[in-house]
């Protein structure tokens, strides 16, 4: 993974001192809250429902054992012994004090981490595929491009006061494991005549007006990608709507102009920007790439796994994916124990995962946008020992991509933007479907819950989606079916009137039972829904 050089380190150190001074001025009353708010947001510090919340960046979801250990230390020393992994591969802490915030940022900087631009109307964390670098289906590791973009986007002087937040994702396989098409800019790295370049999609997003990003350019090479995204951002900064917060994302601009006109404006700006020398030399991307070279894999090692422990075999079959390198495997640590809080981990669990990464995964972990943790370099021979340790710590639910592997935003329990609680609904659903046999029978079923229309729980992209709403002061839940954040991207459709907390769980049982009755061989829930359409599901739910 990328390691800072003196320049990168100096940037985060200076940023800590800048924020320390800004916080001091706020605490001394030299800055009003209105003046301080955008400054603290650009360092990921929110004033949330119960306290200040700090969102720490995990660039493209990759971190080392040492960094993970620091995240656990922060949870223990400054928070209430836990952290929450988010749908943008970051971590957030719910009980931070402003007077501690600069010290926390300093602790993060000591391990090459930061909270830069994890909030605010600026370019956010660049996300990527949690299997980057280790999956056989990728064209190349997308993360060097993500790192190049991370540096380019940090403290960008022209794009720090955009109409709204801006989210970029980079993948390098046809299978989209990062919901790339639902980002403001999505890059899919492809190879044409032996040259790697990016297909560029602009204008995806969820929220009030979900949209799948259209392709704006079919190929941009690495020596022009910076000029090209500068052009995309400049058109957005100049012409994105600023009159209405809910119409301010680039997806609205692309939609209102039409993708062809947006493309035309970008091309015009791009032609101009290409003359300005904005692109780093290819040597810079090559330099970054050296940090993402394959590790010194052991060869001639066991490529089979002893399945004799049946509980281990269940986890092996569900949570372990094929690695590009013989003898290795990709293991997912599920943070979705039945009845637990999706994406939460205690400081002890975080520190354990750090240890496990160091011992079993060449010191590297990934955060997934589904709020789980991946160990990308596990030798098959070590899987059993790894599983035993995970299981002892409650970190081995064998439910990757099953119905209890729920994506849930923090919801009204934590978030002042929310209209309804999401976590208790996730818990009730998980409890109803707790039986592992039942979960396996249902198979791949991506269930996503958002506590409000901002859609941080990605409910539009759920095979089953739930949206919490406020119905005259009472929590109510709408059911959506048929969404997907993968390469077969689609937006979920609302079934009809909403339900209370018990009703929504029953409704989910109704639709899953229908699926079991009606499915054809090999069909997932999503496939059966797409084949049958909404009508039979609506009929089953509402009669």
């Amino acid at each position, binding site marked *: 993974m990328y390691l800072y050089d003196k320049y990168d380190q100096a940037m985060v150190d200076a940023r800590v001192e800048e924020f320390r001074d800004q916080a001091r001025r706020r605490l001394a009353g030299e800055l009003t809250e209105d003046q301080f708010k955008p400054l603290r947001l650009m360092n990921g510090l929110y004033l949330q429902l119960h306290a200040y919340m700090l969102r720490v960046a995990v660039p493209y979801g990759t971190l080392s054992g040492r960094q993970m250990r620091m995240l656990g230390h922060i949870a223990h020393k400054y928070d209430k012994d836990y952290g929450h992994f988010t749908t943008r591969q970051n971590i957030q802490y719910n009980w931070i004090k*402003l007077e501690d915030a600069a010290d926390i940022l300093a602790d993060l900087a000591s391990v090459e981490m930061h909270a830069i631009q994890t909030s605010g109307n600026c370019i956010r964390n660049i996300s990527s595929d949690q299997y980057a670098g280790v999956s056989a289906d990728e064209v190349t590791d997308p993360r060097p491009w993500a790192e190049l973009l991370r540096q380019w986007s940090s403290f960008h002087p022209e794009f720090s006061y955009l109409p709204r937040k801006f989210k970029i994702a980079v993948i390098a396989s046809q299978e989209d494991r990062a919901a790339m098409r639902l980002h403001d800019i999505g890059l899919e790295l492809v190879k044409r005549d032996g040259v790697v370049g990016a297909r560029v999609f602009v204008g995806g997003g969820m929220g009030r007006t979900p949209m799948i990003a259209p392709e704006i350019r079919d190929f941009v090479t690495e020596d022009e990608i910076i000029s090209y995204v500068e052009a995309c951002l400049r058109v957005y900064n100049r012409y994105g709507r600023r009159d209405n917060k809910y119409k301010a994302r680039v997806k609205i601009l692309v939609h209102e102009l039409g993708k062809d006109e947006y493309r035309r404006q970008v091309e015009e700006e791009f032609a101009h920007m290409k003359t300005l020398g904005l692109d780093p030399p290819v040597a810079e991307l090559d330099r970054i790439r050296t940090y993402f070279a394959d590790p010194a894999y052991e060869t001639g090692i066991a490529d089979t796994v002893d399945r004799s422990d049946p509980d281990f075999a269940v986890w092996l079959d569900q949570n372990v994916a094929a690695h590009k390198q013989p003898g290795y495997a990709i293991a997912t640590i599920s943070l979705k124990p039945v009845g637990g809080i999706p994406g939460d981990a205690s400081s002890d669990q975080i520190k354990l995962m750090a240890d496990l990464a160091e011992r079993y995964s060449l010191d590297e972990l990934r955060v997934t946008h589904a709020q789980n943790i991946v160990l990308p370099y596990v030798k098959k021979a070590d899987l059993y020992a790894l599983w035993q340790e995970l299981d002892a710590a409650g970190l081995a639910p064998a439910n990757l991509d099953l119905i209890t592997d729920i994506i849930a935003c923090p919801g009204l329990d934590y978030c002042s933007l929310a209209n309804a609680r999401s976590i208790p609904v996730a818990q009730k659903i998980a409890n109803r479907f707790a039986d592992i046999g039942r979960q396996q029978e249902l198979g791949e079923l991506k269930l996503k819950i958002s506590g409000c229309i901002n859609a941080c729980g990605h409910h539009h992209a759920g095979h089953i989606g739930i949206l919490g709403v406020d119905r005259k002061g009472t929590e109510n839940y709408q059911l959506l079916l048929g969404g997907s954040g993968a390469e077969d991207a689609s937006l979920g459709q609302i079934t009809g009137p909403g339900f209370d907390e018990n009703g929504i769980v029953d409704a989910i049982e109704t639709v899953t039972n229908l699926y079991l009755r009606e499915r054809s061989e090999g069909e997932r829930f999503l496939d059966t829904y797409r084949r049958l359409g909404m009508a039979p599901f609506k009929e089953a739910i509402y009669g």
Partner: protein
Amino acid sequence: MKLLTGNDLASGDVIWWTGNGWSRHVGDAVDVADNGDALLASESAARRVNAAYIIDADATAAGPLPTHIKERIRASGPTVRTDLAINPEIEIVKA
């Protein structure tokens, strides 16, 4: 009744106007009636509260109960971590 609430600037704690100061416990909150805006302005100017605002609440035998569920959760704590609740006695879902 109307309650004046906000956050402690340095700690971020949720605080409630008690009539002569600020408390972390909604049970200590008083009805600010028509004085809410004036109090909000003076307490904010004196920097004894950050991001203050006024909410509706019902007077109950157990003390003031914020009317809206979001405000009740804010007064109490996350319902999924009752071990972290500041005011666990607050009834979240009204009977």
